[in-house]
């Protein structure tokens, strides 16, 4: 039995509310609430215990109503280290165990001393590996912290990238609109400000969140997969096992194409929605590389989907009638274990899906496609937003491809088991 030091930071979390609710006269009720919450957080920290028992992590919590949670370590997809801003001041950190499934049922070991976090994570990961493979870990100690940095994003580039991205552009438009409004008539601008405060705040937070998350992000290669470190206020360390990746894509936005830049995004299993993430970000992926050269991007893709197809076949010429903007980019390719597709109207998006991750396949033909003897094949994955779509292929080819991919996906599934 090991005494856990959980949730000290629950109390810490509520500190900003003090500064938030700082209107002198009516802040008493708030202060009382905060005091109660701080006390409750402290009590919850006092009564929470965790221990490792066999292949399970047990967490027991609750003062009046005891709650005991059991997490099978074999189900753990990844363990992240998160250090929120205030927790950093107190030199504590949080471990988040991600399990598969989107219900967000993740175990949090909140607020352990900083120096204990890394060894504990390594231990839990080793146990999880053992539990998965069913046999005890080999005696040899893995060399710790042997990481090779693959990519690092300069801050200037990140700022440029966010400024030219969709959310950035919206925020800038709002800002410019406001400035113009202010120059033309200050009175009207005040009205706009009060009316559009929600929008301004929303755009501002979206930009800030991206910056905060991606600031100084580095991608390095560790023994168990790719490691992501980064963050401005809250530092996070995330480990991405290759088996967790449902799909990878390289996005080349229109504005960046002359510069030869792109970003790499991955769709993961069991990516838990963060507490602060609103609706806007629910559909978002993990950005592996916010901005970088194509060469570097392909190198990262190679680590995640080792056997990726290198040549893509273009769509038949008549597809140009159906998708004039996309036509030049359409293409797909496959190897025994991976499908790649490319599309995009103005920008260009190339996606890779490992066939063992394919959940289902769909053949779809719309009325225009029927006229042109075209059809699309979709490869559905459990990820959120990256789906490989073989768009506007010859109808006969699409039918053959569907059968072929079904067979290959089956083989890929079986070989993994």
């Amino acid at each position, binding site marked *: 039995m090991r005494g856990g030091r959980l949730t000290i930071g629950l109390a810490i979390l509520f500190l900003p509310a003090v500064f938030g609710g700082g209107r002198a006269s009516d802040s008493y009720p708030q202060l009382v609430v905060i005091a109660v919450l701080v006390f409750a957080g402290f009590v919850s920290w006092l009564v929470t215990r965790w221990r490792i028992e066999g292949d399970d992590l047990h967490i027991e919590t609750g003062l009046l109503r005891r709650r005991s949670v059991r997490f099978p370590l074999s189900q753990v997809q990844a363990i992240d280290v998160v250090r929120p801003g205030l927790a950093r001041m107190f030199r504590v950190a949080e471990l988040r165990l991600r399990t598969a499934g989107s219900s967000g049922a993740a175990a949090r070991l909140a607020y352990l001393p900083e120096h204990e976090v890394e060894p504990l994570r390594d231990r839990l990961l080793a146990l999880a590996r053992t539990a998965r493979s069913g046999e005890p870990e080999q005696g040899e100690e893995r060399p710790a912290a042997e990481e090779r940095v693959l990519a690092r994003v300069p801050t200037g580039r990140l700022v440029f990238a966010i400024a030219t991205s969709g959310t950035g552009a919206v925020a800038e438009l709002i800002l410019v609109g406001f400035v113009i409004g202010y120059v033309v008539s200050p009175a009207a601008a005040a009205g706009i400000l009060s009316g559009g405060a929600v929008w301004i705040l929303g755009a501002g937070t979206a930009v800030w969140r991206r910056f905060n998350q991606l600031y100084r992000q580095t991608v390095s290669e560790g023994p168990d997969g790719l490691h992501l470190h980064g963050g401005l206020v809250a530092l996070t360390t995330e480990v991405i096992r290759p088996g967790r990746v449902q799909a990878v894509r390289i996005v080349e936005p229109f504005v960046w194409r002359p510069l030869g830049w792109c970003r790499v995004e991955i769709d993961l299993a069991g990516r838990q929605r963060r507490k602060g993430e609103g609706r806007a970000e629910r559909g978002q992926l993990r950005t592996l590389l916010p901005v970088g050269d194509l060469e570097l991007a392909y190198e990262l893709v190679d680590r995640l989907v080792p056997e990726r197809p290198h040549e893509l076949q273009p769509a038949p010429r008549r597809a140009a009638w159906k998708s004039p903007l996309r036509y030049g980019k359409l293409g797909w390719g496959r190897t025994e274990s991976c499908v790649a597709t490319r599309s995009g109207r103005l920008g260009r998006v190339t996606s890779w899906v490992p066939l063992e991750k394919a959940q289902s396949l769909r053949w779809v033909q719309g009325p225009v496609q029927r006229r042109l003897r075209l059809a699309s094949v979709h490869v559905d994955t459990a990820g959120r937003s990256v789906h490989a779509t073989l768009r506007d292929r010859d109808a006969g080819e699409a039918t053959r491809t569907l059968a072929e991919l079904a067979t290959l996906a*089956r083989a890929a599934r079986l070989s993994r088991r």
Partner: protein
Amino acid sequence: MSHVETEEWRRPSPRLLRLRRLEVAAPAVLAVVALAVAGGVTGTAAAYGAAAAAALAAAGLSPFVARRYRSWGYAEREDDLLVRRGVMFSRLSVVPYGRMQFIDVTAGPLERMLGLATVRLHTAAAATDARIPGLEREEAERLRDRLAELGEAQAAGL
């Protein structure tokens, strides 16, 4: 119509066609009656015209309903289930048994009246779109049990 040969396609019950026709006819009859009554009360020719138009529209829809019914099909293969459907947008889904997470059998009030049920398969991918409407109750139950059994035998997780 069938995209993959050598398959033995099964069809939903013919009662599904009756259900679909009912779904078109019931509102049409209501509209026609309401418009005709309105025409009788106010004595305007326009209301009678509208009633006739509603009746014609419903009759005109009938062949489309029949074609849509005929496009439905499913085939149980060794490792996966095929579902095809759609006239304007024709689709064919391949769902491996090992990927199925759970199977729903639902029956709405009209379906229950006709002894029908809808079977829907769920995988971890939200985009998977495999449902088979209008199965006779026993067939729906047989399919559900069979799929559950096969799914368990071949389960592959994420």
